[in-house]
Structures are given as structure tokens and as C-alpha cells.
């Protein structure tokens, strides 16, 4: 028996380095102004998938991403770390998707991969912070879901046991396949790129990337088929146009505001047991901690 794992990954603007051009007038993210990176928690998910691949023989790990042409980089980064393959869903029709349209698109992509045992994804992306796409995708795939995963406690080719990191403690759950797991940042960090994989896959790309760079890769793809990264459009994943992109997205951004935090008043706390006690109580009461 072997396992087939799909990792959902997103290329995101590096919101840890936000400048003043981070948002457009329309209230969407200005992708051109920010460096594009692998969404951090998706890397945790990829690591979990690769860990399972190390544990259960004959496991295959595929990475699925949706985005512009340059999202092919996400697949290359995954191949460098040990993934077996990857696919990019790229189509003008999916632009402007909210979480509903995104999860629909992604679920159609997962279905196209045939029988899948396990879908892994980061808990949330750092550009939207919704944490909705994973669970919504699970619903559309009719898979049970385990969210906030931190650690794989046990795994074989029939089931997986996961430690979940929750606000007030941890929970251990076990689930038979197929299922969906979303992984948080407390899970192990992703391994580094592996030298031989990097050398093997450094020229891997989608046909769209090749076209953008005016490269004719016909010969290269014929000689080394593993260098061709799968590229799907809306028709490839048999998606209904009305459920894609802006038309499939009921969420509308009404207004974007810059919030500048300034210190208005200060509180002096006595450096005594009582003073600290009062401070902690106040912080709990105002839901800052606890």
C-alpha cells in the first residue's frame, strides 16, 4: 500500500516586509510591491508531508498551488525539498477569488489528482489570515478535517494520529483516510533544500513560465519529462466559470484603512507583588492575555 498526499501551498507577498505600497487603491494586495514567498505555514505542512513520506514507504507527495504564472516557484521550492511533483492552477478566471471561490477551485484541482489519501495545508496564509480555505476545501471534498495540527503522533497507510495545538491545551485525534489536515506554525519547520534535488529540478517550469521567458522547452521536456511542472486552467479542472474568481466570490472589500498605532496614555505599575497582580488581572480582563 502506498499513500498519496497533496499539499496545498500558496505563494504570498511577504507581509513581514510591508511598505507603503502594499495595498492597491481597490483594496487588494499589491503583489508587485512585495517579494513573493512560500506561505510559512504551508512550509510546515510540506514538512509534515515529507515526514510522513520518510515514515510510510512508497508515499508520494504532490504540491498544488493556485496563482499567477510565477507561482511555479512554489512547486520548484517543494521539489528541492523532496516533493515528487506539483501542479499550478493558473487562469485569469480565478483572479480575485475569495475563500469560497478559492476552496472550490482548489478542491476541483485535488479531484483531478484522482484518489488522494491525505490533503495537508498550512493553517492560514499571511496575506489574508482567514484560515478558511483549508476547512472549506475539506467540506467540498467531503473529507473529515483535523485543524491546528502540530505533530504527527502515529501514521501508517490506513490512518493518522495528530496532536492539535489549541488555545488552552492540546488534543490528540485519530482519523482514517481520506482526510484533510491543516498545520500551524508550532509544527516542525520545513527542511532545507537538498543539493541533488536542487541540481535536478532547477530548470523545472510550467509551459507558461517558459512562454513568459521566451524559452522553447519542447526538447528539454521531451528529454526530461520531470522538468515539466503541471499547469491547469479552469477547463482542465472542470470548474464552472460562475464559481470562479470575482464572480464566484460573494466577499467584497468595502474599504481599506490604515491604522496607525500611537501611544496615548501610560500607566505606572508599582514593582510589587500587588502591582504586578493588578496588571495581570487588568490584562486578562481586557482579553489581551489569557
Amino acid at each position, binding site marked *: 500500500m502506498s499513500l498519496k498526499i497533496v499539499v496545498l501551498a500558496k505563494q504570498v507577498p511577504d507581509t513581514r516586509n510591508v511598505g507603503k505600497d502594499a495595498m492597491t487603491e481597490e483594496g487588494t494586495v499589491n503583489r508587485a510591491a512585495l517579494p513573493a514567498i512560500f506561505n510559512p505555514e504551508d512550509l510546515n505542512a510540506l514538512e509534515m508531508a515529507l515526514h510522513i513520506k520518510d515514515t510510510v514507504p512508497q508515499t508520494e507527495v504532490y504540491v498544488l498551488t493556485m496563482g499567477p504564472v510565477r507561482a511555479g516557484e512554489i512547486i520548484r521550492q517543494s521539489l528541492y525539498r523532496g516533493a515528487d511533483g506539483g501542479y499550478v492552477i493558473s487562469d485569469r478566471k480565478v483572479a480575485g477569488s475569495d475563500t469560497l471561490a478559492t476552496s472550490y477551485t482548489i478542491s476541483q484541482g485535488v479531484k483531478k489528482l484522482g484518489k488522494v489519501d491525505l490533503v495537508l495545508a498550512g493553517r492560514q496564509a499571511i496575506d489574508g489570515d482567514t484560515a478558511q480555505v483549508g476547512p472549506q476545501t475539506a467540506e467540498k471534498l467531503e473529507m473529515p478535517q483535523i485543524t491546528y495540527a502540530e505533530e504527527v503522533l502515529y501514521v501508517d497507510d490506513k490512518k493518522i494520529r495528530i496532536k492539535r495545538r489549541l488555545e488552552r491545551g492540546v488534543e490528540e485525534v485519530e482519523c482514517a483516510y481520506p482526510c484533510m489536515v491543516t498545520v500551524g506554525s508550532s509544527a516542525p519547520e520545513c527542511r532545507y533544500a537538498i543539493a541533488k534535488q536542487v541540481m*535536478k529540478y532547477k530548470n523545472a517550469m510550467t509551459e507558461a513560465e517558459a512562454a513568459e521567458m521566451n524559452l522553447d522547452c519542447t526538447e528539454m521536456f521531451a528529454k526530461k519529462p520531470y522538468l515539466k511542472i503541471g499547469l491547469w486552467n479552469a477547463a482542465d479542472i472542470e470548474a464552472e466559470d460562475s464559481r470562479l474568481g470575482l464572480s464566484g466570490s460573494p466577499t467584497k472589500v468595502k474599504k481599506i484603512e490604515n491604522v496607525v498605532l500611537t501611544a496615548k496614555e501610560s500607566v505606572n505599575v508599582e514593582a510589587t507583588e500587588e502591582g504586578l497582580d493588578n496588571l495581570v488581572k487588568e490584562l486578562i480582563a481586557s482579553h489581551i492575555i489569557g
Partner: protein
Amino acid sequence: MGNFYTDNEGLKFHLRHDLMEEIVRLKERDYADKDKYDFAPENYEDAVDSYEKVLEIIGEISSDVLYENAKDVDAEGPRIEENAIIYAKGTQKNHDALKNAGVYGLSLPRQYGGLNFSYVPYVMAAEIVSRVDCGFANIWGLQDCAETIYEFASEEIKNEYLPRINKGDTCSMDLTEPDAGSDLQAVRLKATYDEAAGVWRLNGVKRFITNGDADIKLVLARSEEGTLDGRGLSYFVYDRANKAVTVRRIENKLGIKGSPTAELVFNNAPAQLVGDRKLGLIKYVMSLMNGARLGVGAQSVGLAEAAYREAVKYAHEREQFGKPIADFAQVYEMIGNMRAKTDAIRTLLYETARQVDMCKSLEAISRERKITPEEKQLLKSYSRLADALTPMLKLFSSEYANQITYDCIQVHGGSGFMKDYACERFYRDARILTIYEGTSQLQVVAAIKGVTSGVYAARIKEYEAVEVGGELATMRQTLISLRERYEAVVESAKERLGTAGEAFDFVSRRLVEMAGYLIMCNLLVNDSAKEESFTKSARLMTKLAQSEIEKAAIYVENFDPAILEDYKKML
């Protein structure tokens, strides 16, 4: 975080040196592996691109993992538990990260699990690692032992041991004994052939063994009973799995604390002969030693780079008398000289590495097929140059690393004397560099031949033949007259003192250093012709060389051997 490869323009410059195309073509045997391995390069550009990408991985791990662990590793150090050496936690993490990234066995051929990189990027990896953790650089650098196995051992031994390197097995080279340090001819550890078991048995003590509890050990031992010199020594490979070596103690050292230095007792330890009997010291160790000396060169340059960066950062942050201390002439002189010296030893490091790279490939090819007379000639000239440059590199780079880490503390002032800043660790780590793998004094003994035979002068004239323009031409003129001065001083010393006696030995360090300044300065001038940013260092070093060469010249010209008696009376 950062990346210790991509943030270093000096490395990128040397990776693209003109000779690299030929170096890579030879190493790749005209890209013969391209259809056999999916990760093998198809051409020069492809190969160098792979070098860069893999150096980026090493640069990232160095900056993320090694950098985070360096301070704790220095404080914790290794320990002995149940006759095994346990690395400091950080050391183990460093090793695991590099192992998992598949970067061990960088220069080993692909058939043995390696990446088949040429020697230059391998040395660069060592420099990057050393910039973060000079002690860990030993554990990383001892994969050099695999080179010796690859070059001299039987196919059987190669197949048994070499594939383990890429999987993370560590190595050690066990040479030193209590009574055999610089003088390895005195090695006593006994090797006797066990007919019944069909193996050699090793018995005796080794001391000061870096990474002493390694998985794979190369051991120098006396196989010829009754002999007393180097011709009775052979080289053996021992597998840790045999559990026949006791770790008696780990040394408590001044620096490079993450790198365990052990005293070992071999108890009838089974081992296999590497290559031929009696060639242990005179051929194999000499070859390994040259590699190890170049490794110290890489360590020195990496450490110098780290110290320069710390100093310049601190000098901008620290304010006294109402301005950053970087604005004071005496401070920026120190920092500028640190940068210039670092660039100087780096260009010497990669100049040496390129010669060794050519030698290694040509030698490997000569074992695969009969080489042409032209190739034979090439091998001879590269090999002569590699032999001459290696001790020069070891001497200058390790001495400069000490000066630079010393100045790094000086720039930090009182804070630098405290444990709060990395510079005190750099200073302690630097101290071993002029000592191990042959002291500076022994490097002079090796390098003086290049002075008397004229190898250095001839090479310097080759550098001078490279045409440069503008201000660089003026520097070149200065260097040419300094070279003429050097040659005149050498000739008069040879004539006046003869080359055989103590008097010549006494002045030889000064002569070697004169040649060293000329080599480094000419290399810097030629680098500047290709990359303008090196000009500052070329200018600073040429000024420094001018005064240092003149100083040495005056001393040697006025040297009266009678003064040796005064020195001896003070003993």
C-alpha cells in the same frame, strides 16, 4: 534570515575566475556524466549555476542554523559518555542540517554518492562555514579524508567507505602522538598483520586527534617492525563500528571548543591498508596535509571575514566624543587594513585552490587513462605551483586571521574583552590556526624552497605580465621595483650566507614574507582590473607591502650571523 554566500561578493567573484571553465571541464571529464545522473551538469554554465545554488543552501544553513548555535557550542563543548564523544547540542544540529541537505561529499565523484564539485567551490563552502563556527569547520572539513581514500585506496575500500560520506558519516585523520607532533617520522602506533583474520591490527596511542571519535578514521601507523623513520609508516582506514578504540580524554582548549580533540587508545583495532605499505607518511599524509593546510587557509579567511564585519558594525554603532568611533583615523585605519588583508588572503586562497583543483583532476585522469605529454607537463607545472603556494597561504592567512581578530577586539575596546561579543570567541578560535596542520615556522621551511628556486619570482613575473591600466599600472610599477628589490636581497643573502646553514634559516621567514606580499598584491591588482571594488584593498596592501618589504630588506642586508650567538646565549 541572511545568506552567508550571497552576501559575499568576494566569493562570487572568485567562482567566476577565467580558469574555472577549464577546471570544471576537467573535473567533469567533458561533462561525461550528463546522461548518467539527473543532477549532473551539461556544460560549464550549468555546472557553475549548480555550484552557486548549492553554496546558497550552505550559506542559508550557516546563517540560520550554525550562526544561532555558535555561542552555545563554544560554551557547551563536547563530552565523553560511555566511551563515545557526544557533540554539543548545537554541533549535532549543524551536522544534521548539512547532512540532510545532502551537501557532505561535495567534491566526491557521483558514483560514490558525491556531488562531484570541483575543489574551488568546496573550499568556498569551508570558508562560509568557518565564518560562522571555526570549530565546526573542522568536522565539516574532515570530509577531506574521503579525498585521500578516493585517491589512494583500493576500489573495494572506496566502495565500502565513500558512499557513507554523503550520508553524514564523519572522518578523522589520526596522525599525532605524544612524541610525534611536527615530527611525524617518530610515529610509534603499531600495525601488525593478523593472518588468521586477514586484517591489520592497530595498537597504541594517538593524541590531539580532531573529531577523534569519527565514524571513519585514517590512521598513520608503523607497519614495518624495527624501522625508525617515515619509511616504515603505512596508512590505514578504521571503521568506528568495530568499537576497538577507547576515547581516553577530551582536551580542554583555548578555542575551537565545538571541535572535539581527543586522546585515543587503539586496542587491537582491525583496519585495512590504504594504498601501498611504507608510503603512509611520505606520500599519502603529505597529500592529505596539503589539503588540510588549504583547509586552514579557508578557516582563516572565513574567520577574518567574520571579524571584519563585526568590527565595522560596532565602529558605526559605538559613539564617543560625540561621533561614531568609525570616524577616527586610528580606528578606520585598523578596519581598512582588516578588509584589505582579508581580500589579500582570500585571493591567495582561491589562487592556491585553483592550482590544486587542476592537479587533482589531472591526477585523477592519469589514473583513468594514459595522459598526453601536454597534460603531463600541465600537471607538473600546476603541481609545482600548488606545492609552493600552499605553505605561503597557510602562513599568511593564519597569521592575518590572528591579527584581524586581535584588531577586532581592539575596535570593540573594553566591550571586546567581555564575553558579550563574538569577537573574543573569534580571537580564541584564531589562535590554533598558526599552529595545527604545521606551524607557521614549518610553513616557512616548506616555502623557502620557492624563494631559493625562483618559483615565486617566476610566478610574480607572470602576474606582472597581465596588462592593467590607469592607477593600477602605477601600483604595478611600484610592485615591479619591489620585486626587483626582493630578488636582489635573496641573491645577496644566498651569496653571503649560503642556503644550507642556520644563518639562512634565521632570515628565511623574512624572505618568504617578502615574496608573499608581492604575490598577494599582484593578485589584488589583477583582480581590481576585473572588479573595480578591489582597488581600495589593492592600494592599501601595496602601501603596506612597500613598508614591510623595505623593513625586511634592511634587516636581511644588514644581518650579521654573529648575532645568532647572542640569541643562543639567551636560551
